[in-house]
């Protein structure tokens, strides 16, 4: 097993390019915002190049090499030991790749969206590219100060994306989103300062370097660890979101434009679970073990609560938020069940959730774009009008409920199998969530797509003046099946869902070394290995 904090700087230009390209793109797109057409083309161009760069970074990554690769670093505030340093491990890399995948799709999906009056497409896409640069930075930062800075800064473009381009109650949703995350972040700042001061006392000079801080903090007394743990945990639990801190997500998802909702659920929220893995387990191993039951309770509560509320939702966008809350429960369950299988499951869950739920959100967005309503009751029998859309809705839904053969099944299975030995009761309760998942997905599909054609959004009855009704099918004329652009947006996601469902090895290969290193830093013993080798401790070089 490799040293959990070893660093290699080969290919660092790739990571630098990954960080700077979207920034450059944002500037260019802002400059071009006068002309919608060129701005859109530029945004798409930059995001596609970024995706290709992400793939190159993926192939350049050596799973058997150092833990942190493609690293680079220079001084920022020398008197406080703050560096601008970035590097990726397997977990960060897959997330960066997912960002690279989702952003062009989101841009493609939002190509023809109507924006609120007075807003330009260029501004919208520039903010998305800026958000992309910042989230890549958050996953790649290896200086805790830098991580915190990016963690807070990334709220601002998202705040404007929701607040400027969202639905009716967008102001409320944007402020709620910002305040929740900002408060969580500030509490984390207290812990960051605490770690820094500890490092200063122990080493003589404070540092924010992640690897060094892990060394300093991880054998602190339990009581200190618990305080510091809570600072980070609250910030990440708001982001992830775990149950009592989740209430911003349904509002934010419901009000955000559909593409922004994809980024919010697919990327921003993953920062929380990523933080569990990168910061909580390695830095505070004793506190993590001590407080694992608490997190597991919240995780399982999230699974059940999210599933129940998703079942009862009347609004499709809020439905998506609660589905995600349930899924984040599974991810947290896997992380705090402390076995290499469950951790690997959680990491792949993060990827597959972004793909599957991202697709579900996009599909629902396409339904809403046709019907002009987010209420489930306004739809019915839509499959008759839009058979291809219905089929893709079903695929996304089945992937969300982790049907075997879809990529989500692999990760959910790994989480449950890996969690059972350490947390059997929680795992059993969590499994009930899977049954709920089948219920809420299939019931939604049935209500929206199946049966006779009905609902105000589809049938002309309540359509405003000027609504054209097709006399042959009795539905609004404007409702047609997927356009070529929409098919092109969804196709890669379908391929990945099926492809990674059958052959998940590429992702597993990349993340396994990082997961093992995390296990090792947290001094966690794999139940399976412990039985086989009789050892109490994993050997870490």
């Amino acid at each position, binding site marked *: 097993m490799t040293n959990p904090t070893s660093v290699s700087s080969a290919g660092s230009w790739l990571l630098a390019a990954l960080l700077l390209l979207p920034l450059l793109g944002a500037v260019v797109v802002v400059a071009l915002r006068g002309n919608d057409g060129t701005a859109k083309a530029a945004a798409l161009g930059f995001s596609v190049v970024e995706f290709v760069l992400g793939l190159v970074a993926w192939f350049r990554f050596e799973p058997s090499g150092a833990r942190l690769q493609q690293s680079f670093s220079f001084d920022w505030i020398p*008197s406080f030991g703050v560096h601008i340093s970035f590097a990726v491990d397997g977990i960060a890399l897959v997330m960066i790749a997912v960002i690279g995948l989702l952003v062009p799709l989101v841009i493609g999906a939002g190509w023809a969206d109507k924006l609120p009056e007075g807003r330009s497409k260029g501004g919208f896409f520039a903010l998305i590219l800026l958000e992309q640069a910042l989230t890549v930075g958050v996953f790649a930062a290896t200086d805790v100060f830098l991580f915190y800075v990016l963690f807070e800064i990334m709220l*601002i473009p998202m705040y*404007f994306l929701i*607040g400027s381009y969202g639905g009716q109650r967008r102001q409320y949703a944007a*402020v709620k989103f910002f305040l929740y995350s900002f408060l969580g972040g500030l509490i984390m*700042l*207290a812990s960051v300062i605490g770690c820094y*001061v500890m490092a200063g006392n122990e080493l003589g000079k*404070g540092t924010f370097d992640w690897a060094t801080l892990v060394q300093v903090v991880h054998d602190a007394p339990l009581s200190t660890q618990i305080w510091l743990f809570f600072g980070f945990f609250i910030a990440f639990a708001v982001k992830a979101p775990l149950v009592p801190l989740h209430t911003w997500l349904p509002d934010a998802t419901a009000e955000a434009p559909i593409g922004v909702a994809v980024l919010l659920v697919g990327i921003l929220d993953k920062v929380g679970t990523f933080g569990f893995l990168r910061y909580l387990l390695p830095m505070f191993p004793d506190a993590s073990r001590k407080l694992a039951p608490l997190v597991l309770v919240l995780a399982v509560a999230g699974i059940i609560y999210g599933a129940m509320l998703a079942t009862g939702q009347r609004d499709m966008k809020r439905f998506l938020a609660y589905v995600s809350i349930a899924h984040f429960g599974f991810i947290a369950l896997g992380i705090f069940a402390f076995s290499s299988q469950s951790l690997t499951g959680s990491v792949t869950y993060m990827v597959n959730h972004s793909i599957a739920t991202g697709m579900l959100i996009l599909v629902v967005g396409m339904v809403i774009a046709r019907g002009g309503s987010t209420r489930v009751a306004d739809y019915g029998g839509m499959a008759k009008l839009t058979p291809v859309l219905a089929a893709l809705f079903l695929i996304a839904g089945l992937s969300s409920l982790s049907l075997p053969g879809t990529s989500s099944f692999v990760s959910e299975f790994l989480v449950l199998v890996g969690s059972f030995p350490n947390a059997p009761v929680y795992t059993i309760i969590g499994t009930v969530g899977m049954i709920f998942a089948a219920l809420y997905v299939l019931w939604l599909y049935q209500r929206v797509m199946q049966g006779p054609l009905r609902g105000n959004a589809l049938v002309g009855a309540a359509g405003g003046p000027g609504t054209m009704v097709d006399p042959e099918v009795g539905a609004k004329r404007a409702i047609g099946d997927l356009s070529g652009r929409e098919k092109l947006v969804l196709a890669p996601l379908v391929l990945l869902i099926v492809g990674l469902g059958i052959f998940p090895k590429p992702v597993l290969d990349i993340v396994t070394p990082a997961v093992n290193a995390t296990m090792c830093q947290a001094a966690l013993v794999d139940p399976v290995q412990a039985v086989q080798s009789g050892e109490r401790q994993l050997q870490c070089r």
Partner: protein
Amino acid sequence: MSVMTSVLVLAQAQPAQPAKIEAPPIGAIWPILIVLGAACLSVLFEALLPRHLRWPAQVALALLTLAAAAVKLVTYVSDAPAAGETAMFGTLAVDRPTLFLWGTLLALTLGAVLLIADRSVEPGGAFVASAAIRPGTVQDRAQVASTGMQTEVFPLTLFALGGMMTFCAANDLLTMFVALEVLSLPLYLMCGLARRRRLLSQESAVKYFLLGAFASAFFLYGVALLYGYAGSVRLSDIAASAAGSDRSDTLLFAGMGLLVVGLLFKASVGPFHTWTPDVYQGAPTPVTAFMAACTKVAAFGGILRVLQVAFGSTQWEWRGVLWGVAIVSMLIGAVLGLTQTDVKRMIAYSSVAHAGFLLIGAIALTDKGLSGTLFYLLTYGFTTLAAFGVISLVRDSSGEATHLSQWAGLAKRSPLVAGVFTFLLLALAGIPLTSGFVGKFVVFQAAVASGMAPLVVIALIASAVAAFFYLRVIVLMYFSEPAADGPSVTVPGAFTTAAITLGVIVTLLLGVAPAFALDWAGSGVFAIH
């Protein structure tokens, strides 16, 4: 006692030399002398120059003064003794923190003078043409329409600046008191000089004066008690007496309490902040900017020196009380700020919250706490200066439109002004990549290192609460529909543009590359003589 020992040490060091009386070194205090001398000259300008020449002459004099003082300061810093020295027979201590504070004050005053000198935003300037005219009369309406102004505001500014610089450097309590009055009296007058809404302006001047007089009385009473305790008003003598004596602590702590109340009043730390919202709202906006930025710097400079030099040894007795004061200040600022509907009052409550954060740094009583607080003062001063500069631009027919509802949809009409103000609000809220975040970070880090973690957690929660009212303004500007008869944004003239640009650039620079300023702030500690 300590004087005797130091004489003895001197005598031992130079046994052969005959005792010789040296001329007091004034190289160190040239900046103060320049500022006060120019203030006197400026008064003569008022008396002797014809009316139409006064404004250009005063503006030129003020800018030249600041430049000359800055040049003297910079040349002195390059070969100043690292440990600092005293001047004027030991009444002024010119050490690294003093020099940093002087530099900060000069730079901030430059910004404030630019705002004061501006005559394009409000035709004729923000100041009344003739302060003696009664508000509401025919003459008053005539002066609103005229383009004259009371150029006495320039000598008053320079005197206030001289007082502030002396205040930061004062090495004994009497000098400090005199400096306090020199800085306060001009400010009281300046508050009452607004061209529009003169009743509000005069009310604020009277309120500030009466409460300020009370605070001065507290301060002076405290000085008297401390003199009774230590037999000296020198800060180091008080420290020496407190460190090793069996005298009654009652005098010491009663005196210290009264003294600190006077100081906290000037720094507008809650619960001694009650003047702040009214005065910030009523005073002409350039004066508010000057007061908010420079008075805060001077007052905290004084607080830092008094607490560290005179009372450092007794900190375990009084630190708990100041913990409480800091908490009260942060909570008052954050919570009452939520309920404000006027931009200037909102920034006033924000300044109360910031005073609480600053106090946390001041009571850390470590070198890190000192440098952190100094840095915070620098960042806060520039941000708030630029914020008031922007506030002065949003106007309707009756003057500045400070009611929050009038700011709705501002981003639609003038995206640049809304963008700049958003940036400044984010800096006040302490978002990373602005100077406000780095300032908070260094102060909180010093506080955690000196064992005040619970206080820091409270401070962070207060920051989050305060963030809400900054956000509310951003929401109003960006996400709300503009009112039909809303205010318009004046295109600022060169002076105001320069002041706002200065503030914004410093806010950004200290947020992105703060290393050099942190090094300056941390280059030395208070000299104890």
